[in-house]
């Protein structure tokens, strides 16, 4: 844990703290239909035109059911649209590599993945998808799924801020305004910056390079249709090939990467994601990408404080997130720096710790920091192989996601996720001070507790239910490339990543099978939409409530005591559920590694 790491961590925290307020202020303007931004001269006419074409009346607000219905309808249509593009990409333009149709199950998985802001990739971008599929079928979702998350968070915040009301905003207006005023402009600037760092942005076919040293690989044998041939044992038949040429990926990468980070999507343009030299060319691009993952989520906490007229509350929620973030970074960094005792014993370990699966350009600290950031924020972009982390180093990303992606979190999703915990913390603490619990003056009653707990329940069912069924089914075990507790971690990680809408993977799992494509697809849909419905119901309940004025009898939802309370609730109510499963995975693996066993 060298000094440069500490300096970079401090720089990262300072930068994060500095962008929070401006981002929050800008969000407040964007999320107000009458808000003013300096982009108005350009975007107002475009916004008005869009509303006219779509038949949206921007002054008409929705109640929670209408809002949720609009969001679900929009997502469903988007999901079907992407499925269709993937299935028909052969007939669609911008396909210089002439890629064929994507399998039905993979197309479902991918459509679900991008609709839910997960960007779990059971395909390898450069060898499966055309430019058209990438830019229209997927990048479209990178924008609107992020905008959807922010819209839901805004609706919940409005519900908290308003009182004795029914409506929580207009979904279409939120969607359009977030996309036009927030995501597109920032991405334009960010993409130009990334190009300046050396990231590619073109429509060229892939470049062929001749290898200086030909290599032999085992590949799956395919029939004329491009389907894998299976042997009598059901396993794919493999053959040896000698590779003499390398395809170097080309394409509109910078524009894709900008929204992948800012919108916490995480789906890499290249399979290697942010470890690929084109996709993450410099230390500065690495730093900026990490910061952009947190930017909107962090700003939303300021937006919360501003809307409810209690800025300290916003900052307390932010601090809770940052404390959990720091805990994760430090543990992960320490575990990776400590390295693997078995390697050390054999004398083959890198001097500064566990370098397996890490990009040499980033080293231990930046890999640990990136892994923590990307799993805190349900982004899922990676610049190192989480699968190759030490058991405790790999425990951190897994644990971050199991908390429900609330540490800064996915854009919007992080805020509405932690607000569920805020409601529960307020409920328990409210009883402890002897009053019907109040959150910012609103009574938290049976219905609200029911909806908050329902969303936690859905997360637990999605993760534990699917993982438990995978681990004892033939289909589930077939995808596993590692044994023992590490295999358990891989399966647990996949379904956690899916339900948390993260999208990063413990790469040891072969996910592109009909069974995994289907279950992971469902897992992602549950983790997104089944979570949102009770949260929107909570918003519908909160918006109607009267506000009781604060007095000495109401405890403040800011400051140290509330911070401890919120952290306690997150850890005791949110995390304890996953501890037994985690014990059988990374924790046992850690002790076994100490005892000299690897998997």
């Amino acid at each position, binding site marked *: 844990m060298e000094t440069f790491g500490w300096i970079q961590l401090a720089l990262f925290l300072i930068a994060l703290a500095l962008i929070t307020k401006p981002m929050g202020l800008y969000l407040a303007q964007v999320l107000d239909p009458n808000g003013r931004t300096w982009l108005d001269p350009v975007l107002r006419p475009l916004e008005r035109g869009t509303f006219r074409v779509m038949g949206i009346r921007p002054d008409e607000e929705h109640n929670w059911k209408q809002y949720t219905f609009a969001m679900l309808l929009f997502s469903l249509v988007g999901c079907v649209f992407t499925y269709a593009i993937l299935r028909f990409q052969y007939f669609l333009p911008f396909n210089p590599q002439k890629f064929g149709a994507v399998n039905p199950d993979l197309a479902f998985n991918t459509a679900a993945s991008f609709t839910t802001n997960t960007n779990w990739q059971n395909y390898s971008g450069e060898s499966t998808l055309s430019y058209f599929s990438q830019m229209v079928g997927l990048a479209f979702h990178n924008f609107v799924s992020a905008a959807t998350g922010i819209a839901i968070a805004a609706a919940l915040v409005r519900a908290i801020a308003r009182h004795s009301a029914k409506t929580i905003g207009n979904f279409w207006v939120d969607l359009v305004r977030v996309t036009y005023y927030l995501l597109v402009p920032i991405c334009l600037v960010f993409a130009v910056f990334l190009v300046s760092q050396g990231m590619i942005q073109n429509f060229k076919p892939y470049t062929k390079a001749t290898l200086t040293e030909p290599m032999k690989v085992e590949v799956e044998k395919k029939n004329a249709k491009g389907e894998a041939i299976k042997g009598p044992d059901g396993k794919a038949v493999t053959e040896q090939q000698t590779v003499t040429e390398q395809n170097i990926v080309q394409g509109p990468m910078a524009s894709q990467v900008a929204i992948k980070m800012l919108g916490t999507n995480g789906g890499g343009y290249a399979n290697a994601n942010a470890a690929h030299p084109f996709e993450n060319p410099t230390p500065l691009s690495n730093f900026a990408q990490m910061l952009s993952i947190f930017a909107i989520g962090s700003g939303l906490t300021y937006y919360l404080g501003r809307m409810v007229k209690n800025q300290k509350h916003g900052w307390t929620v932010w601090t809770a997130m940052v404390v959990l973030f720091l805990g994760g970074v430090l543990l992960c960094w320490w575990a990776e720096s400590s390295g693997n005792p078995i390697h050390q014993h054999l004398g083959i370990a890198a001097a500064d710790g566990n370098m397996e699966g890490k990009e040499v350009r980033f080293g231990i600290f930046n890999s640990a920091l990136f892994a923590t950031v990307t799993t805190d924020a349900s982004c899922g972009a990676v610049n190192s192989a989480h699968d190759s982390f030490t058991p405790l180093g790999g425990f951190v990303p897994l644990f971050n996601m199991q908390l429900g992606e609330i540490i800064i979190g996915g854009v919007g999703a992080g805020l509405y996720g932690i607000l569920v915990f805020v409601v529960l913390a307020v409920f*328990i603490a409210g*009883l402890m001070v002897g*009053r019907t619990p109040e959150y910012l003056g609103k009574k938290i009653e049976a219905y609200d507790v029911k909806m908050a*707990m329902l969303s936690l329940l859905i997360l637990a069912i999605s993760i534990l239910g699917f993982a438990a069924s995978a681990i004892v089914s033939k289909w589930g075990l077939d995808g596993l490339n590692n044994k023992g*507790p590490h295999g358990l971690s891989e399966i647990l990680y996949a379904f956690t990543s899916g339900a948390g809408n993260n999208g990063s993977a413990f790469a040891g799992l072969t996910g592109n099978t009909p069974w995994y494509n289907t279950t992971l697809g469902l897992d992602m849909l549950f983790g997104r939409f089944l979570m949102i419905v009770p949260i929107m119901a909570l918003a519908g309940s909160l918006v109607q409530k009267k506000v009781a004025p604060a007095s000495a009898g109401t405890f403040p939802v800011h400051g140290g005591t509330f911070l401890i309370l919120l952290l306690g609730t997150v850890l*005791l*109510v949110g995390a304890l559920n996953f501890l037994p499963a985690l014990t059988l995975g990374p924790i046992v693996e850690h002790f076994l590694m100490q005892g000299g*066993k690897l998997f």
Partner: protein
Amino acid sequence: MTQKPASLFDWNIVGPAIGDAFKKLNPRLMVKNPVMFVTMVGAALTTVGIFTTEPALRGFVAQLAIWLWFTVLFANFAEAVAEGRGKAQAASLRRARKETMARRLRNSHEERVPAQILQKGNLVVCEAGDIIPADGDVVEGIASVDEAAITGESAPVIRESGGDRSAVTGGTRVLSDRIVIRVTADKGAGFLDKMIALVEGARRQKTPNEIALTILLAALTFIFLLVCVTLKPFGIYSGAAFWIPVLVALLVCLIPTTIGGLLSAIGIAGMDRVLQRNVLAMSGRAVEAAGDVDVLLLDKTGTITLGNRMAVAFHPAPGISPDDLAASAQLSSLADETPEGRSIVVLAKEKFGLRARDMHELEATFVPFTAQTRMSGVDLHANGAQPTMRVRKGAAEAVRGFVELAGGIFPQPVTSTVDEISHRGGTPLVVASDMMTLGTIELKDVVKGGIKERFAQLRKMGIKTVMITGDNPLTAAAIAAEAGVDDFMAEATPEQKLKRIRHEQAEGHLVAMTGDGTNDAPALAQADVGVAMNTGTQAAREAGNMVDLDSNPTKLIDIVEIGKQMLITRGSLTTFSIANDVAKYFAIIPAMLMARFSEVAPLNIMHLHSPTSAILSAVIFNALIIVALIPLALRGVAYKPMGALAILQRNLLIYGFGGLVVPFIGIKLIDLIITALHMA
């Protein structure tokens, strides 16, 4: 009924409660409490497990099963004890409910009928010695009534037709005279019937916060059920076949059994505490709402002040000695039987040592107060019919007229003293003897001792107090300042009270008020918590949701504290229960894994003796903690009036941090004991 709190473990209550704990195992009753129902199912599964496991481990599984059953029984026992205490109260209430014969009036002739066939609207006659057969209103006559049966207060009270003291309660006894009562409640719907049903727990409905908490606990239980069920496949993959009894033990330790087992006991005990303070609450919801109240409307008279104006000072006019003023003031008041008059005599005695003189010896005649003269006083007849000296006291204007008529001058300094006193909120009475103006007596509402401190406490609790009075704004402001209330309503009418309550509620406040008169009924009904005085009218008692048998308006503050205490106890035990899970994880999880992965030994941070002793210790701790906390559940967590943040910090430290630490110690101790006893 004397509401002495029964000692926590009175054998008369504990004995039957042990039996009830078994009776409550009826699954149809258990299912109402999801946490304990799951525990019971787990206990049953483990019992079956005794016969299906290998003989070497039977002893261990049998012990697990026993302790799991104990967990359920302890929870049932807690509820049964709380109910038992309620029943003891109810029994003494019911003794007041002896079967009586009623004298019903039908077409103005009397018939004797059993009390239980009386219906609403019937007229019954009660004479000295009769027990009043049902709740009702006096429609004719006046009587003194012994209400000791329900209030415990032995002094009889007056009940008369009309006015604000017309309500009578079934079960009380008429001591003198004859009254006719119109029955206002059918048999079984009366006051006592409702309260008996409530304290016995039979008709107890869950309060809103209790329902919300039950949902939280049920959801946690479901999540942990999912955790334990999915642990089985994870175990199969890992080559560690977790057996069912161990998974059940883990489940029961993780689900919030501590609060789940004590939840209903806390609610019942709360109602019981309300009754101990001689307050009848119509529902648990009302008591809980009392904890939320943040505005108290209090009548000035009787609540904040002692009730009557009292003389507090003599201000002599220029050239008059204080003694002379006091003597004349006393003289003018000797025969004045009003409380004000008596207070003047008392003040003269206290300050100047003047003893009361006999009116006959002085040959004085009393001149009573009339609306025309607006003065009272005495005429002295030294010898003969003509008065030799006329002493008067009264309002400044009236006395000025009196003095000036006699040819005297009303001195300017007296006028200014009068104005000053008025400004202070006092009432000035000027004393004159013929043409001499002697000075001014200052009368004042006397604020009850200690009330200011009480209001300061309320402020710390975040409760605003509003004084309601018919006085003019000047007087009201002065008393409000002296008593330390936050706000006041002067010249208040019943309509204004109602309006004020609606206004406060519209701003999001929860309002409590006390009242006794019929004209208070609308406001009592509108208030979130309306406490009617037992001395009040039937209309007021029906409009409110609580009745104070002692008719003591400051009782409202006690009720607020009980309401808060009920919530605090639930919240604190919930926090404790959830925080306990951490230690239980560290006890059970390593124990479960040891057989398959011996490398995890360092996770056994408590150094428990063996896997079986670790699991058993956690389960035993989980069961015993319920018993250990029964007294706390029944007594309630101590409530001190202080700011919400301070309370939160205190309870978070005790029950949150304590909840983390205590089980580590407890489980370790139990492990040492059962290891020493070779139980595991």
